[in-house]
C-alpha cells in the first residue's frame, strides 16, 4: 500500500496537508497555468474585506535576510466582486482541493458581515479569519491582540455560518496561548498560526524606511523558528483543553523538511506562503518532499506524525 497523505480535519477531507497561504497565491487564477492549486490540499484566498481596497502606496515589499517585508494594505477586489467574479472560477477549478476563503474587517461588524456573506456562498469549504494583520492598524497593535475582539468576531460569524471557521492568529502578542484559547472557546474549529511579524527596513542612503508605510510584515524562512514555536506551544495547550482543535502551521515553509517541523510540532495542515514567490511550484515541491521523507522513513500515514515532537 502506498503512502497516505490525506488529512481529515475541520470536518473536511484534504487530499494532502499542503495549502497555499492567504495573500501569496492571489485568487488561484494567475498561477493556475503554472501551478494548478487543484494539486494541493487547498487554496487560501487573499483576505477579502467588505469594500474593494486599493491598498498602500509603493514600495510595498522589500527583501530582508531570509525573508521579506510586505505592507500591501489588504488590497483586494472587495466582497461583492469576489463572490461574483472570483469565487465561481475558483470553485470550478478546485478539483479535490479545498477552498478556504480568508476574511477580515476593520470592525467586529465588518468581520461578521464579510464572514457571513462568504460563509453563505457556494463553493467555499471553510473560512479563515485574519485576526492578525499588523499592517492596517496604527502602529503595532492589531485587531487580534485583544481576546474580547477575537471572541466577538469568531462567535459573531459562527452565529450565521455553518462552515468550519479557522482563526488565523498573529504572533505579536505576549501570550498567543491565551488568544488561541479565546478563539476556541468562542467556537473556532481550527487555528492558523502564524501571520507575519512586524518589521522595518531602513535605507541608510535615503534615511527613510524602505516600505512606504514604514512598518511591514516579516515573512519567510527567517520567521520559521517563531512559527514552529507558536504551533508547538499552542498544540501543548490544546492537549490540555477539553475539545482541542486542529492547527494549521504557517511561516517560512519552503521545503518538505520545513513542513515536517510544523507537523511534528502539532500542525495537521500547513500553508506555504512567501516561498511561492521563489518558485511558482514551491508548494507542489514541498508536498513531494514530504512524500519522499515519509517513504524513506517508513511513515505510512502523514497524520501519524502530527505532534510527535512533544515529550512522550
Amino acid at each position: 500500500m502506498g503512502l497516505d497523505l490525506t488529512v481529515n480535519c475541520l470536518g473536511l477531507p484534504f487530499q494532502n496537508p499542503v495549502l497555499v497561504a492567504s495573500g501569496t497565491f492571489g485568487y488561484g487564477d494567475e498561477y493556475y497555468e503554472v501551478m494548478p492549486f487543484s494539486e494541493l490540499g487547498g487554496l487560501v484566498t487573499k483576505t477579502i474585506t467588505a469594500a474593494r481596497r486599493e491598498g498602500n502606496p509603493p514600495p510595498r515589499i522589500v527583501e530582508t535576510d531570509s525573508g521579506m517585508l510586505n505592507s500591501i494594505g489588504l488590497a483586494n477586489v472587495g466582497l461583492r466582486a469576489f463572490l461574483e467574479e472570483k469565487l465561481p472560477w475558483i470553485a470550478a477549478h478546485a478539483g479535490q482541493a479545498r477552498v478556504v476563503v480568508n476574511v477580515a474587517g476593520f470592525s467586529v461588524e465588518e468581520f461578521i458581515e464579510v464572514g457571513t456573506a462568504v460563509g453563505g456562498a457556494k463553493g467555499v469549504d471553510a473560512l479563515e479569519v485574519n485576526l492578525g494583520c499588523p499592517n492596517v492598524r496604527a502602529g503595532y497593535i492589531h485587531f487580534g491582540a485583544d481576546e474580547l475582539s477575537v471572541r466577538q468576531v469568531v462567535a459573531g460569524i459562527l452565529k450565521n455560518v455553518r462552515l468550519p471557521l479557522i482563526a488565523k492568529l498573529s504572533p505579536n502578542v505576549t501570550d498567543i496561548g491565551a488568544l488561541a484559547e479565546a478563539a476556541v472557546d468562542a467556537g473556532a474549529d481550527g487555528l492558523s498560526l502564524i501571520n507575519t511579524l512586524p518589521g522595518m527596513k531602513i535605507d541608510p542612503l535615503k534615511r527613510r524606511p524602505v516600505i512606504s508605510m514604514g512598518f511591514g510584515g516579516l515573512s519567510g524562512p527567517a520567521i520559521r523558528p517563531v512559527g514552529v514555536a507558536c504551533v508547538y506551544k499552542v498544540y501543548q495547550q490544546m492537549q490540555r483543553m477539553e475539545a482541542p482543535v486542529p492547527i494549521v502551521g504557517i511561516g517560512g515553509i519552503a521545503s518538505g523538511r520545513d513542513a515536517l517541523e510544523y507537523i511534528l510540532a502539532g500542525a495537521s495542515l500547513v500553508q506555504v506562503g512567501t516561498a511561492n514567490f521563489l518558485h511558482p511550484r514551491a508548494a507542489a515541491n514541498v508536498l513531494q518532499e514530504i512524500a519522499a521523507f515519509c517513504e524513506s522513513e517508513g511513515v505510512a500515514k502523514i497524520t501519524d506524525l502530527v505532534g510527535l515532537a512533544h515529550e512522550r
Partner: protein
Amino acid sequence: MKPVFKWVRVLQISGLAERTYILRFEEPESAAVIQPGQFCMISPLPGSSNVFLPRPFSYYRVISRSVIEILFRTFGRATRWMANLAPGDEIGVFGPLGNTFNLAPGPGNAILVGGGIGIPPIVMLAERLSALGRLKRLDLVYGESTASRVIYLAPVLPASVRCHLTTEDGSAGQRGLVTAAVESILKECRDPLAVYTCGPKSMMGALSRILDPEQVTLFETSCEENMACGMGICQGCVIPVRTGGDSVRYLRCCAEGPVFNGFEVQWA
C-alpha cells in the same frame, strides 16, 4: 506563452562597462516568443547565495533561436551575486513575464529613450521596430551619468537607428540630460510621434512633463518597482496610475506593466 520556470546554465558573463555586465543563457522556449518590454525573474540556486527573492530583468537580446541575453548593473545583493556568476553556474529563470511595448505605433517617427540601465528593453525595441520597417524615422537617445558607464551599442543597433548619446558630465556624447536631446529631436520632427522610454523614475517623469500629448500620440514607459512573485499574485509591485480624471489606481508593474502609458503614471 505561459511563463516557465527553469534552471538554466550560464553560458557567458562579461563586463561591458563600469558595474555593467551581460549574462547569456539558453532557453529556447522563451527565446521563440519574447517581445520587447517583457522581463524574467532571475533567482539563485538554493543555498548558493544569500539572495532571497528573485529579481526582475528585462530581456536585452535574443541572439539565436535559443540564446538570451540580460544586461545588468550592480546595485546590491542580487546584482553582486549575478556579477560573480561563472559559465556553467545554474540560475533560475522565470519568464517571459509582463506586457510589451506597442509595436504598431502607426506610420511616423519614434523616439526611444534609455536612461542608464533602462537601456536593455529599448535596444530590443529598436531592433524590432526597425525590422518591422513601418517608421519614417527612428531616434534612440541613450543617457548615462558618465563615460565609464556607457555601453557601446553600435554593434547591436540596426543601421537605420539614429543614435544620440548624452552624459551628464559631458565625458562622452552630448553633455546634459536625455531630456535636452529629446527636445531638440522634437523640434525637428513635427509629425505624429511615438516616444518609448525606460530609465530612472526622475527621467521618465521629466519626459512626461516636456512631451505634448497632442504631438506625441503614444508615450510608453517601462516602469520599475520592487517585485516578489513577478506574475500578479503578491500585489507588491504596484505603480500609481491616473485612470480617468484624478483618481489613482495601483496597477501591478509585473502584470498590467511593466509598460504603462507615461501620461497616466503618477510620477511624483
